[in-house]
């Protein structure tokens, strides 16, 4: 069962298309990371899903309801934390929790107390007196305490220093053990996302490049390094080989469809005497490779 499903979803700001033809599914219980560089359409996607923006075309279903029809009942099961959200800053942390509590029948006071201690938030301090990271934690706390079925995090790590970011991620991971929820997190901070996500979707210029599980993604990408004299390429490169670099007796590329036997065979055909090494990649490296190759493609297309 999918908690979120979109079908050919598009959104334009006047004449600028921010999101185009997005078809995506977020399975129940998954942690889906929506990745992409700035302006890729991540926030627009989330805003359309949350009914903050109306789709220009296509449709989106959230918790089985058309995104344009999301009402009080659905919102009581969705938690949303965004770097852009304006919190009622005149409130103290406790006042924020007191204000939010009556709107949620599923609010768990014990969980609230536990998270308050876990996030190390000063309950009597006003939100405007808190640091950015603490504010995000307060927003997350007011979201997690009612055990939402769906947690939507829009750029939650943006602007946080590494310590706070780590704190926040740890808090999120610990909280994840307390409930069974589906998470959609958009970020360009891939290292943090890697610790959280089991599904990844990559957006580029408003379009979905791919969506798959993190395991499969990490499995199919390898950095291949070849030790050989620079004698040029024998024939063309397969389309799945990205980011070819060579020089000083070494060459490397990223295989985006890595299969040990097939990759070794293909390398041997092109570089019969070379020593070939395949190294696993982090999500960040994969993202950078894809972003660069995408940019090249875009530039190429533009040229």
């Amino acid at each position: 069962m999918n908690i979120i499903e979109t079908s050919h979803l598009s959104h334009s700001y006047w004449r600028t298309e921010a999101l185009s033809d997005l078809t995506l599914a977020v399975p129940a219980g998954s942690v889906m990371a929506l990745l992409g560089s700035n302006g890729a359409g991540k926030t627009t996607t989330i805003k359309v899903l949350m009914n903050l923006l109306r789709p220009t075309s296509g449709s989106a279903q959230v918790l089985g309801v058309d995104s344009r029809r999301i009402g009080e009942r659905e919102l009581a099961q969705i938690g949303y934390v965004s770097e852009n959200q304006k919190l009622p800053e005149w409130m103290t942390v406790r006042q924020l929790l007191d204000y939010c509590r009556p709107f949620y029948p599923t609010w768990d006071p014990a969980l609230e107390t536990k998270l308050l201690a876990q996030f190390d938030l000063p309950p009597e301090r006003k939100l405007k007196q808190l640091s950015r990271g603490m504010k995000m934690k307060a927003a997350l706390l007011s979201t997690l305490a009612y055990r939402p079925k769906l947690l939507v995090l829009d750029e939650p790590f943006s602007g946080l220093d590494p310590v706070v970011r780590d704190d926040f991620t740890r808090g999120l991971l610990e909280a994840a053990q307390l409930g069974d929820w589906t998470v959609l997190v958009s970020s360009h901070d891939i290292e943090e996302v890697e610790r959280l996500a089991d599904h990844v979707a990559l957006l580029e210029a408003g379009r979905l490049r791919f969506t798959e599980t993190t395991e499969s993604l990490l499995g199919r990408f390898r950095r291949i390094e070849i030790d050989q004299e620079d004698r040029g390429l024998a024939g063309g490169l397969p389309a799945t080989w990205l980011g070819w670099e060579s020089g000083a007796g070494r060459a490397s590329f990223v295989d985006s469809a890595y299969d040990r036997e097939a990759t070794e065979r293909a390398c041997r055909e092109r570089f019969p005497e070379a020593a070939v090494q395949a190294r696993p990649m982090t999500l960040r490296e994969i993202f950078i490779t894809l972003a660069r190759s995408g940019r090249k493609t875009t530039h190429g297309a533009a040229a």
Partner: protein
Amino acid sequence: MNLVWHIVKKDLRALRWPLVVWAALIAAKLMMGLLLLTSTSPNDQHLFQTLDALAKLLAAFECLGVVLVAALVQEDLLVGTTAFWTTRPISGGRLLAAKLLGLGVIFGVIPVLVTVPWWLACQLDLGTMCMAALETLALQLLVVILGLACAVVTDGLGRFFLWLLAFLAAIPLAGATVAVILQRMNAVVPADLGTTRVVLGVGVLMLTIAGVVGHQYLTRRTWRSIGMIVGGIAVVMLIELLWPWSWHIDSQWNSFLARRTQEAWPAGAAPAGLTFTADRAELRRTVGGRPDRPAQLRVNCHAEGIPPDQMFVPAASNYSLRWADGVTDEGWTWFQIGGEFPELLLPLPRKPGLPSKESPKSCSIRANHVISAKIATRLARESAAYTLQARFSLVEAGTMERVPVAPGKRVLYGSMGERIAGVEKEGESMLVTFVRHRPALISDYLAEMGNYVLGSGANWSSPTHYLLVNPEGKVLDRGVGVESHSSRVASVEVRWETTTYRAMPISFDAKKPRWEAIKALEEAELSRVTYRSLGSFAYELKVDPLVVVPGEGR
């Protein structure tokens, strides 16, 4: 409903300091009223003007309530995608209900609650108090509607003020455009149709704003809401230009006033033996006797058979002039009472403690009418049939009571009250300042204005008069009003009236030296006469033909 209250409480907590300032502003205005009412130096004209100006200024500051409307609405923004409430289980309808309730508390409950002590201090009865509260709510509603129209489509106070300025500029601009177009079309809009268009236009504008507010809360589609505002203004302009059907609002209002007049001044209710006749009529040209300017028609009348001890009080009335060819002129009349007026005003009653005196049995009264230059020219040339629908009241002195010649406590007459606030003796004359208050609702002003314009009478309302008497009870002087200032604070009019009294007439006669007048004043006392209305009646006077003679002077 609990969640609606929950949101209201949050908003009130968020705005608690501005609300304190808001309530303090209203309280400060009322404090000015209280100072006007209780001042111990009421001869100080400068003090009155200062307090009055401050009360008006503070009342004007209440218009800053629009900022509160904006702050309340923008506590949960309707514009943009960053508002906290939009991703919480709060529907637009619920939020709208909460905001309306919040506005009700801020602009209804708080002003009324803060003002109630003032109304109680002024002894307003429950009915008047309810009317005053409604009036307060209506005035606040104007501020709220204006504020709402701009607050729901903006995302900050800066933009709100820009929109407010634009909106405030758009209304007179649209009005001026309509006026110019009508002028170019040479369109003549009858008064009744003009009133209908204005009422309808205001109604459509209010409905548009209500629609925009509802639409914005339920859909948050800001550009469409802005389109609705612009469309609404365009529709209002079209109504002002083209609406063809009159709802006869003017006529209905006039009929209502006429009906009320007939009830208040019933025809044929005059006491037996009282007659009212016309002697002669004069036509006086105004400035320089120019024939192209309106003229004044003065009809000298005579009332006979006024019962003893009663005062004959004329009210505004109406007249008609009719010629044989059907040309008619109608208008309103005001009266001036002749030389007997002072005596009439002092019908000394046969009450214990005071000597009796017969009131005059007759008096001369002049009915004044302003007529157009055209009618005046024709009237000078040719007599017309004249009808005067004259309205009068009869009053008598109910009680007389000695009061010390010194500042004293307030005396109440229903919802009206007065007190002697200051006494100053200067040689043989004495200045007494009275501070009076009475309910002054805008609806009363409107009705009174209508009554005067239509010549359908105005009620005699002064319930008391102070006479200067000697220790034996002989009336020495009725006093002459020398100064009067009035201020209106939260539906109550406060008036400072200074009257000068002399124990003996001004005389340079050696037989009555100045010291004697001063001594008489030292011994004199004040006596408060409280009047009682004995009834009102209408008297139709017909003169056919009315012969006018040219008058002299202004």
